[in-house]
Structure formats: structure tokens, C-alpha cells
């Protein structure tokens, strides 16, 4: 087991949106900043910077995390999914389409986090109740649209994903 001691740049490799990426960064640098500054994936936003607002939500090894609270050292070897990996060029993910159709986004700062929290929720629970939707997104704050349209967007995404898979998708 090699010991990593430097407070200066450390070579980190991980999988981001399915591609292997390598960066050199101080081990305490926040995953959020590595994504935005080193990898130029600026879809992930910083809101509060203290784990309260969920704007910086990404998925790490299949779990939702606040990337502002992850020192990049702890992302070594991890599979990271950001909002950039949700849709494909020219083709939005059904969750994104639902947010667009239902007015689930206004200023857009919270939206990437909302989308990733929704992706996490539907991956483990493809047919959430309204209570489960509220809980799944409870760590994501919106300060302009209001939550009604966001919850409607999640419900619409569930319907859309169901119709595409004949109601049988398993997340």
C-alpha cells in the first residue's frame, strides 16, 4: 500500500462520466473545484459550499454526494457522474426533458443538482411516491422556481421513463 504524503499535487485518477481522467491536484482540493477548474466541467455549480444546498450534487460510485464536501483524494478510483454525463450531445435525458417541459428550472443554479438527485432517486426507486420525491430532493434548495414544479418534473420524468421501457424499467 503506497502512502501518499505530499500536501502538494497528487496524481488522482478516476472515471468521470464513463471516461478515465487523471488530474494533479492537492489532496484537499474539493472534488467540486477539480471538476470545474481542472476538468472544465462547469455544469456542477457551487451554491453554499457547506453541504446544505445540493447545487454541487454529483454521483460517486452510485451514491449522491455533495462534491463541495469531497476532498479529491477520496475520489481516487471512483466512478463520478456529473450533469454533463446525463444526456448525450443533442439528446437530453428524459429527466432533463421533463424539467424543461414542466418549468422545473428558472435561474438554473440548482438545476444540475436537482437533476443528479433525481437521477439518484430514480436509480434506486423507479416509482417514487410524492413523499419519496420530496425526501430524495430535500437536500437540494431552489430559491426561484419553487418546489412544486420541480416535483412535478420528477413525476413527469417517471412517466416518460416508464413509457420508454413499457413500464418495466428497473432504474
Amino acid at each position, binding site marked *: 500500500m503506497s502512502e501518499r504524503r505530499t500536501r502538494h499535487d497528487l496524481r488522482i485518477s478516476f472515471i468521470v462520466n464513463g471516461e478515465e481522467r487523471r488530474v494533479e491536484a492537492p489532496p*484537499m482540493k474539493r472534488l467540486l473545484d477539480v471538476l470545474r477548474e481542472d476538468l472544465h466541467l462547469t455544469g456542477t455549480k457551487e451554491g453554499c459550499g457547506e453541504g446544505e444546498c*445540493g447545487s454541487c450534487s454529483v454521483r460517486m460510485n452510485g*451514491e449522491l454526494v455533495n462534491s463541495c464536501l469531497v476532498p479529491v483524494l477520496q475520489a481516487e478510483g471512483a466512478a463520478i457522474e456529473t450533469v454533463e454525463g446525463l444526456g448525450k450531445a443533442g439528446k437530453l435525458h428524459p429527466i432533463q426533458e421533463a424539467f424543461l417541459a414542466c418549468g422545473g428550472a428558472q435561474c438554473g443554479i440548482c438545476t444540475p443538482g436537482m437533476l443528479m438527485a433525481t437521477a439518484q432517486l430514480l436509480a434506486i426507486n423507479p416509482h417514487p411516491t410524492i413523499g419519496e420525491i420530496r425526501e430524495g430532493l430535500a*437536500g437540494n434548495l431552489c430559491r426561484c422556481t419553487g418546489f412544486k414544479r420541480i416535483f412535478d418534473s420528477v413525476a413527469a420524468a417517471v412517466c416518460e421513463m416508464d413509457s420508454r421501457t413499457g413500464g418495466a424499467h428497473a432504474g
Partner: protein
Amino acid sequence: MRGNAEAHELIAPGSLDGVLELLASAPGEWTPIAGGTEIMVAYAAGRLREKKLVSLWGLSELRFIECSGDSIAIGAGVTFRDLRAHAGVESGAPLLANAATWIGSIANQSRATIGGNLVNGSPAADSSPALLVYDAEVELISVRGRRRIPYSSFHTGYKRNAMAPDELLFAVHVPLRFAQHKQYLRKVGTRRAMAISKVALAGTALLKAGVVSEIRLAAASLAAFPTRLYRAEAALQGRPLIAATIREAQEKLTAEVVPIDDIRSTAAYRSRVAANLLDEFLRELLPAEARR
């Protein structure tokens, strides 16, 4: 002021032994960091004093839940998401499983660990009241060996605990002998999601023929650290559970707690609500016709 990544050292020895050797080599110099939901907040705000950090994240030796006949052993690196998803915890320690669902958000639960919750030692710690009323023990580990102490003697002051500088919290052991007990846990916060508690109260109790034969009460946010409420318990132990007993227990509780005024609440509100919660729990123990 923002945190400066270059001002902090962070290393990952990659094994429990590696971490313990590091802690032993320079006792008190290295601060363990698990999921970072506390330390990274301080870091981002530029108020993290600790310069040398050692990562526990990803150590499989600390991330286990084992149910034996008479207890559940929970590794310190178990996240609250692990806890709330575990059937054995749900059935054997339902108050703990319940507390795990209201710690922060999903994104916090996937990173925050039970060990971090206890070692951080917030007076408002969400897992603490449940562990106290289950008579949990904590297992500490260092290169010198392991030892177990009652969780009720783990916290020794505000953000202080019984661990030596070279020790790490290894596991929490939750006895399974409370299945027959009535169990209670309620957190009162500003809102349901993502709010730190103003007051939380937990209880386990056994009644025999209307008499309290066994009772444990514990609270968060009512003292410098989460604590049992021994005087309120004493006012109930061996007594018939009638309105006068409940009132006396409420008075003892109010006299026993030492809440403070802070940004989240006031001492007066905390005392009053704690007494109300005790009343709510005790009335649940009464036969239906005897409730108010």
C-alpha cells in the same frame, strides 16, 4: 475566507493498520477524516485548524454491520445510508434506523459515518440519543489493542471524549435486548429536512402491571453533549405510571437539563419542549383508556 488546499496535508494510508501506526507515531498530530461532512464544512469556511488529516474513507475494515444473537456491531465507517438500508438495524435498533433517515440529506447520509457523528461530538448529534437508550458500547482501537466502554461515558465535555490521542473509534455495539421495550425518539427542529435539532429525546421503557420496571431516557441539544437523563429516570423507576409520576419526572428533567440559548433556539424553549416530549412518550406507555 476560503480554505486553502495547500495549507492542509491529507493522506490515505489505505489500511486500518496504516492509520493506527500513523496515529501512534505522532499522537494527537493527525486528525481522522471519514466522509468529511463536518470537517470539509469547516475547511471551506477557512476555519479548519487541523493541518494534518488522515483519510478513513473507503477502509473496508471499518465499514461492516454484523448481527449476532445478542447485539449488532456497527463499524465506525458505516454511513447513515448503510444504516437505514440495513434490515437487521431496522428490526433490532429501530430508533437508530429512524435517526439515520433524518440526518442531513441523502447526499449527506451517503458520506456521513456513525463514527464521525460520535467523535465529532456535537451536542445535537442525531445518532446519540438512540444509542444511549439502547445502552450501546463503543469499541476503541489503537496499536496497543482494543477496549470497550459504555457509550454513556464516551463524551466527557463539549466536543471532548474518552479517546486517547492514538485511538480511533472502531465500532459501536448495540445490544438487542430492547425488543420488548416501548421505544421512542423524536427530534424537534426548524423544519423536517436538513435541520439541526433544537431538542431530541429518546426513550426505552418496560412496564409491568402499570409500574415502570425499566426505563432509559436520553437527549440531544440539552447539555454540552448528548446525555442520559438519570434523574428523570430515577423519578420513574419502580413507580406506578400515573399522572403525578409523569409530572414529577417532567420536573426532574427540567431541573436536570442544562440547555443554552443559541442561534437555533432558546434554553427556555428547549426545556419546555423536552418536558413535553417526555410527557408524550410516557403517555404512549399508558393503556389507551388512561391517556389524557
